């Protein structure tokens, strides 16, 4: 298990920073699929501990995943909260809009993460559609 030190990913990788890029993308997906919040905190910690010395590939994926995770929080939690607040919890219309909205956005964010992880595994940079930052 590699230590999460500032040089993580810079040594031992086929492409400098590849391992760190994969970890960042994995944490993004775990945040969406398994441990929401906890994985995000781990991603934030990883970002601040490694970004200063991260190779370009890792820095790209770190920026992307952090930015996309923040957007995901807004899109999934805040916007859904508004839908329920505005529509009222006990109406069929709110359920239809809220569930369809959540499923579509969540699936799109997970798919984007899967593509990001595939790019990281191939040692390539990636920009999240719409919500990603330039590398």
């Amino acid at each position, binding site marked *: 298990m590699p230590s999460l030190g500032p040089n993580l990913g810079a040594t031992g990788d086929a492409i400098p920073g590849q391992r760190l890029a994969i970890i960042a993308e994995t944490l993004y997906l775990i945040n969406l699929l398994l441990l929401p919040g906890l994985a995000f905190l781990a991603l934030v910690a990883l970002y601040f501990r490694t970004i200063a010395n991260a190779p370009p590939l890792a820095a790209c994926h770190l920026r992307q995943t952090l930015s996309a995770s923040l957007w995901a929080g807004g899109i999934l939690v805040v916007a859904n909260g508004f839908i329920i607040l505005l529509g009222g919890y006990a109406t*069929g219309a709110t359920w*239809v809009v809220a569930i*369809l909205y959540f499923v579509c956005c969540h699936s799109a964010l*997970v*798919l984007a993460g*899967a593509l990001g992880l595939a790019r990281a595994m191939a040692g390539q940079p990636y920009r999240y559609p719409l919500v990603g930052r330039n590398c």
Partner: protein
Amino acid sequence: MVYQSQAVAKPYFIAAIGLFVGQVMFGLILGLQYVIGDFLFPTIPFNVARMVHTNLLIVWLLFGFMGATYYLIPEEAETELHSPRLAIITFWVFLAAGVLTILGYLMVPYATLAEATGNSLLPTMGREFLEQPTLTKIGIVVVALAFLYNVGITVLKGKKTVINTVLLLGLTGLALMFLFAFYNPSALTLDKYYWWWVVHLWVEGVWELILGAILAFVLIKVTGVDREVIEKWLYVIIAAALVTGIIGTGHHYYWIGAPEYWQWWGSIFSALEPLPFFMMTLFAFNMVNRRRRNHPNKAATLWALGTAVMAFLGAGVWGFLHTLAPVNFYTHGTQITAAHGHLAFFGAYVMIVLTIISYAAPQLLGQGEARSNRQQVLEMWSFWLMSVAMVFIVLFLTGAGILQIWLQRVSENPQPFMAVQEQIALFYWMRTVAGIVFFIGVMVFVASFLVKGREVARETPAAIEAAA
């Protein structure tokens, strides 16, 4: 084409596409019957149209799987097919049985069909998806045995690769599980219990092996990535599919009278069922990102990537949506199930068959590695039309399902089924419009075989060598 005997795949693919067109036409009829209750009644009643729609799906997918097998097995085993003649005979037997069965559904009352085909001697009819007359079922077993013999001998005399082993395992499982169609106990719980061994263990079990093997074969060809890398992915994916899918059968046992522990087992294991589909997405995109060649058949690559994505959405996400027992308590048997069924079948199995057809067609038609640019552009149009239309069909069905659950099962004054159906008719209309777009997509796919165009630029052997 590397081996002459691969040509036997051609009639299978043609039959598959023909029956696919028929299936979608009956889907449109059904869509209209949802909103115009007496549409085509009494010529084609709803229950008959539904039976034809689902049975045609199964039959054309089986044609597709068999065609895919006949195409890829000689290439993988590096030897000619054991008996191309047997493959052609089984093709005609299967086609005749399939067409006669569908005509039987359409032209004779179901009870008369059962009587005429001797169902009383060995009763197997009258169950969803397994409506085929017992005679047809016996015919299917004979065809499956001949098919497995032909393919099995070919693999035995040739090279054994991970792909042809996984494919053969999947096909053998398919044939074995179908035998439960002959077990028809009078106790409804027992009947349903084993009925799912055919239905669930096909689509969420052994068919996933067939899907994985075909996808792996096409990805090796279009990306040029090392076989060893792709084979490792395939092992992991099929292991995950079987581990989650077999016990995941429990999600069908929640409310049929099976022991209560299935609510736990079914929920836990089927919650993990999206995993192999997620890995498949990762696998497909990873291989394409690491590709070592630029294959001129862009359409086949698009279909392969689309298969992984749509299978993940349909089988994974939409399956998870209603798979946990406490959720399924409300969603069971609503339009949510229909939404999941449509996207899962399309994403996982329709698209993988279209992927292998797209990959094999230029070679079967003597066009080399790829069809003309014009043909590929049409094919890509058909891909997007079908995929986007299917997404909308599924979203409208999901909307209908959520509202149905609310009105029928959650609200303070639950309403009867038919009263609710009237209130969700708008979703059905929108679904029908999306269905028409889907049908246009299918016709564009067919049209791509009817037009001609200039040959595409091919990779030179030197370029392939350099990339490798």
